[in-house]
């Protein structure tokens, strides 16, 4: 009976459960999970303004007035996914996706209409009496914004972790400060947004493009394949980095533009993998049987062929995430990344360009990039094993 219970759960659930089996992937998910939490709640985790304060009997939420549209969109996305996942109502995947997109769109539209965050924030104001002399207040765990250069302390500059506390100052910098005096931990937390989003979004764009184009090439072969391969060659000839530089020069630097450009130029590798797999699979008897049963094209391509050909793609994708993160870091290194927003690559760059070697500027962002890339690789491998019933049965997972 157990077999039947096991097997009647949906394919996606079974894959998820099998993927989660194993300690390596649990660590990876823990790391990615904490990154997601950091990214979503960054304004509440590391900011210079109080979360809540009570002054002369009236309670105010200073942090909320400084929330941007992006902050709200990320929060809305997180809670929508959480609700759709945990809610007892079960919708089909299409309905879920539609709900998700609708909620995000509504939040973005409403926020851009009604939210008017001040353009210029002077963080030192939050250390003036109007914010400090209150009845009570709750500060974020790390009471420094990423762009808070602590000018009220007189331009601290580079400081090793915990050295300010050692010097009996009232400041505590768990990961030290960077050359402008901003708190490194705070910048790390805010930078996780860029790392996660650029990796996921750019890789998703390129995977979707690659699977569709490569799949059609492999399945139809002939003239479609020939034209597709020429398209692949054209896109492989485009140097992503120089295209990015050109776009940055014309339109200024924007995270979304970078995501789209990285995504649109790096699908060719995925398309090649999928094409090769599909060319091999289309002559398999079970694919022929699916055609002979009159199954629709999307089922043949995505249900019968894709799961059997996806393994090399997943490994490639985990490296794709890493290379997208690195592409952003490279741009930041060249001074063409986002100007004021922190990113791990830009922080690494700071450690290289400063006169003396400051280990905390290299170890923390470098370690974060390493762990993130590592985690994606572990998840990719676990997913590959889960998708293959032969392997998972041998490992004793039902």
């Amino acid at each position, binding site marked *: 009976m157990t077999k039947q219970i096991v*097997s009647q759960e949906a394919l996606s659930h079974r894959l998820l459960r099998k993927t989660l089996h194993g300690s390596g992937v649990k660590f990876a998910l823990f790391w990615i999970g904490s990154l997601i939490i950091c990214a979503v709640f960054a304004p509440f985790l590391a900011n210079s303004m109080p979360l809540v304060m009570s002054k002369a009997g009236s309670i105010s939420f200073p942090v909320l007035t400084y929330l941007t549209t992006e902050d709200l969109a990320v929060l809305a996305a997180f809670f929508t996914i959480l609700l759709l996942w945990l809610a007892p109502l079960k919708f089909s995947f299409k309905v879920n996706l539609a709900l998700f997109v609708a909620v995000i769109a509504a939040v973005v539209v409403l926020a851009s209409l009604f939210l008017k965050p001040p353009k210029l924030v002077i963080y030192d104001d939050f250390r003036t009496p109007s914010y400090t002399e209150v009845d009570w207040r709750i500060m974020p765990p790390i009471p420094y914004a990423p762009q808070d250069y602590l000018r009220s302390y007189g331009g601290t500059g580079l400081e090793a972790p915990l050295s300010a506390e050692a010097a009996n100052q009232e400041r505590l910098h768990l990961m030290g400060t960077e050359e402008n005096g901003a708190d490194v931990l705070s910048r790390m937390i805010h930078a996780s947004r860029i790392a996660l989003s650029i990796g996921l979004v750019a890789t998703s764009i390129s995977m979707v493009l690659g699977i569709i184009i490569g799949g059609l090439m492999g399945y139809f072969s002939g003239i479609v394949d020939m034209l597709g391969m020429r398209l692949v060659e054209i896109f492989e000839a485009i140097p992503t980095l120089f295209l990015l530089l050109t776009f940055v020069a014309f339109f200024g630097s924007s995270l979304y533009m970078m995501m789209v450009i990285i995504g649109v130029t790096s699908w060719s590798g995925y398309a090649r993998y999928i094409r090769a797999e599909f060319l091999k699979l289309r002559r398999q*008897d079970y694919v022929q049987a699916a055609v*002979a049963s*009159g199954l629709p094209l999307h089922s043949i391509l995505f249900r019968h062929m894709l799961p*059997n050909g996806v393994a090399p793609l997943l490994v490639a994708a985990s490296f794709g995430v890493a290379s997208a993160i690195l592409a952003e870091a490279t741009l930041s290194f060249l001074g063409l990344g986002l100007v004021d927003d922190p990113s791990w690559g830009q922080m690494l760059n700071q450690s290289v360009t400063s006169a003396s070697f400051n280990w905390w500027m290299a170890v923390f962002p470098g370690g974060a990039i390493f762990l993130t890339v590592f985690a994606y690789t572990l998840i990719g491998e676990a997913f590959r094993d889960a998708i293959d019933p032969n392997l998972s049965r041998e490992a004793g997972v039902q």
Partner: protein
Amino acid sequence: MAAPLLVVSNLCTYLDNGSEVVKAVDGVSFTINKGETFCLVGESGSGKSITALSVIRLLPYGIATHPNGQILFNNEDLLQIGDEELRSIRGSQIAMIFQEPMTSLNPVFTVGDQIMEALQLHNPEMTVEEAHERAVQALDQVQIPNSRERMHDFPHQLSGGQRQRVMIAMALACEPDLLIADEPTTALDVTVQAEILRLMRHLQVTTGMSMLFITHDFGVVAQMAHQVGVMQQGKLVEVGVVEQVLNRPQHAYTHQLLEAVPENLARHKNPELAKPLAEQQLIAEPLLQLRHVNVWFPIKKGVFRQVADHNKAVDDVSLDIAKGQIVALVGESGCGKTTLGRAVLQLEKPTSGSIKLQGSELVGLSAREMRPWRAKMQMVFQDPQSSLNPRLLIETTLTEPMQVHGIGSHQEERLEIAAKTLERMQLKREHLWRYPHEFSGGQRQRIGLARALVLNPEFIVCDEITSALDVSVQAEILKLLLELRAERDLTLLFITHNIGVVEYLSDQTVVMYKGRIVELGATAAVCGSPQQEYTKKLLAAVPRLALSS
């Protein structure tokens, strides 16, 4: 009685795959006399190949162990001697030929080089000229025409049958006392098989060598063997003179195997299941009508890849198939029978011609227009390994097509139909919740049949569905097909190269050769009194089990 050449006594071969020890050969004893052929028969996995490899000591060290037994070759125990002595015996005194002629020759050396290398290795004093002459002789011996020119050919320039001849020439060049042949004709067409078997018999008479011949085909046994041994699960269950074993089997397993041979099945066929149609009826209401069907594959040449010629896989085929008939499509490999089967289902687009199912034209329909017809025509494939999607449960494989074609109003109903069909295939309901890799080859073919049947088709193309299976499993599936035909009034196009199966199963027989139909008619007529030269040749080549009982 000739003196014994090879005496195998109580041979045990255990294979250690890391986690468990498999007793692949378990206490096998037999004797091969000089100048005689000993045939080992059995189903796949019975240990016959392992026995042969044990004799020539080709099993990998560390994995294979021989805890027991003796292999006395010319009174020398092969299990005891060292590597150096073994090497001098291998090739020069014991030679081996393998099943797959495509992979057993090295593709980068010419045929002549390979034979000469073997010769000079075992006769170091032989000069190049002598070796060359000897190699030409060896090729002459295996009746390869123009042997002197053929010496410079590479393996890919030869046909499968010629390659197997070259393998035999290589094995015989050093004049071995014992030739081990591991299913040497299984990968070949019947006509080529007949020539190779005739050649081997002829060579045995002229050279006086002994043979250890491994096969699963009782027809081949009847032609080749002096002595025969039947193997089952690593044990030799019956040994004896060939006439005695084939005609009066002592062991129950031998009896069962012989019963399963198609020629014998035909004898016990339930007459109610046979259903020959009158000639008029056949023409009056064909379920499927093929007219001048061509499937040509272009051969492209030159810089601009212009079409130089066509490979005419199916060439001007016209055929009527009446409802409820089982039509056998026979021919050698490469004659276009599979392509024709696929063209009928529109899996291969015909270049020209007309294919009508129940009077409606199928050629030229788009994938969308074709979809309603898909449920009426199904296919069952040859290779049980690749015919089921390894990533999907049997349940999904069976219910998804039903859903697409609107069979069953909800999933529970479809599951019920799928379970019923599996039970009809003598499988269990629980098998719905398993993955394909948990099944044996025969079970997978049943599932493949179930996948075709859940759509309630009128017409099924069976493409060599039993050729990868053991005879006993084949017999069960063939019986099942006949019963299903009677129950559901199915029409089958049964593609095969096995004449025994044709005689047992089919009502009509179509013989194909080089893309064309050379003869068609009622099975009894075509197989009993063939009209065409090619059909006569094909039928004469089939190794028969001439039984008296």
